[in-house]
């Protein structure tokens, strides 16, 4: 079994997202000036030009924005079929995060999704998502 790919967690702009996932927390970046979500996370807000952005903890609730079920295998660490989901955060729908689920999953656009963390998240630093 090939190991899955781990996220770099020491990037100065993005690292806290993955470090916090190890502790079961979902952090996202938000602009204190214009209140837009800033994803991918950067210090400067491209929406208003402010540098006054901060990490905020999400409740881990969102809605399903898009998805794809991967059928063509390219990496043995990711056996097909598996389904990649794109979730818009409830607190800040302009922040869209990725998750993955094993197999083909019956999904519907806009359905509620919930972030979850388990032992895998604690070792990989990856928040995951599943239908509520």
């Amino acid at each position, binding site marked *: 079994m090939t190991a899955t790919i*781990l996220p*770099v967690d020491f990037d100065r702009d993005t690292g806290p997202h993955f470090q916090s996932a190890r502790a079961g927390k979902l952090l996202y970046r938000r602009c204190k000036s214009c209140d837009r979500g800033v994803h991918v996370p950067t210090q400067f807000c491209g929406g208003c030009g402010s540098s006054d952005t901060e990490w905020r903890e999400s409740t881990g609730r969102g809605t399903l924005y898009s998805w794809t079920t991967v059928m063509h295998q390219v990496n043995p660490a990711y056996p097909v079929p598996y389904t990649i989901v794109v979730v818009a955060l409830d607190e800040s729908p302009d922040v869209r995060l990725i998750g993955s689920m094993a197999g083909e999953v019956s999904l519907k656009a806009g359905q509620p999704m919930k972030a979850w963390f388990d032992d895998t998240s604690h070792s990989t630093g990856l928040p995951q998502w599943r239908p509520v």
Partner: protein
Amino acid sequence: MSVAQEMFRDRTSIVGIGRTEFSKDSGRSELTLACEASRAAIADAGLSVSDIDGVVRCDMDHVTPSAIVGALGISNLSYVAELGIGGSAPCGMVGLAAMAIISGQASAVLVYRALNGRSESRFGAAIVPRSVAGGQGSYDEFFTPYGLLTAPQSFALLAQRHAIEFGTSAEQLGAIALTCRANANRTPHAQMHDKPLTLDEYLGSRMISTPLRLFDCCLETDGACAVIVTSTERASVLPNRPVLIRAVAQGAPAGISGGMMFPSITYRDPMRLAPANVAKTLWSRSGMGPADIDVAQIYDCFTISTLLQLEDYGFCDKGEGGPFAASGSIGPTGDIPINTDGGNMSGGYIHGLNHIVEGVRQMRGSADVQIDGAETCLVTSGPIGISSAMVLRRAA
């Protein structure tokens, strides 16, 4: 006219085109392919190597300017430039060549793209297997650890979103694949020249990443293309009918970030990527609109890429790309014939420089699927990140 329009419009021309054969295994190096296509383009222009004093490279080309300048024996180099990202660059690359000529930095510029895209570096393969991903501005950490590894998967998320918002169907995406294939069937150099494709075969092709099937994906190709740009004044004494560069534009989508293709689904409106903004600038600079365009070479890494751009460039309304494609409007006798040599889907994937070569052939009247009376051609490059496009025009 704005200063930019007055200084640029029709002042430069593409006077030479060249390409190698398109294959699954070229049997030779990418540098050799680049040299063959470049020599063919220089000869086609009625020029010699000693006339070439500028070179433009695509950022993803393994062939560096120093390698090709050395191998071709270019001895009067005075201008070199490069542009990315990958397939989004070619029209912008020609723009860099044109601006160098207009500003006197060079007099004849070679623009090239060479890749052993099937036998050596396959885009369809996952990004090199590795244990850790991300950092250094790649933003891969948000995507690849989840198994989002390839271009088809990334574009599948866009296609699914288009289906969610607008009800786009497999048959509608398939209309783009079938149009490209039918044109390739009439184009001897196209890789799929001998392989017809029916809608049933398209629908029956294996799923790669839902909703995209095998035949929603472009080819992976070994080959090279090259074009020569010079002033329109000089072009008038060269052998080919000059093909005028009417306008070139680049642009970025709202909410763009770093990274390559994967972040597209996180931009403000993934159904309006860079081409939506490139189009505004291009129509303004060219003084034209979609109704003025006779034929279009629209970048087609996937069917959904082309569908989105049909909307972005105004050939139909946003969301109407599916019904528009399925209506026959994009075929050789339709309102806006596209990808007349088969494009990336069925002709050969030379990362978008192939679309420029075909655009020139249409404006010369020498294409295999020649559109009668075509005098204007839109050429677009890839929709990822910062994109580019141009309008070519047949010289009077």
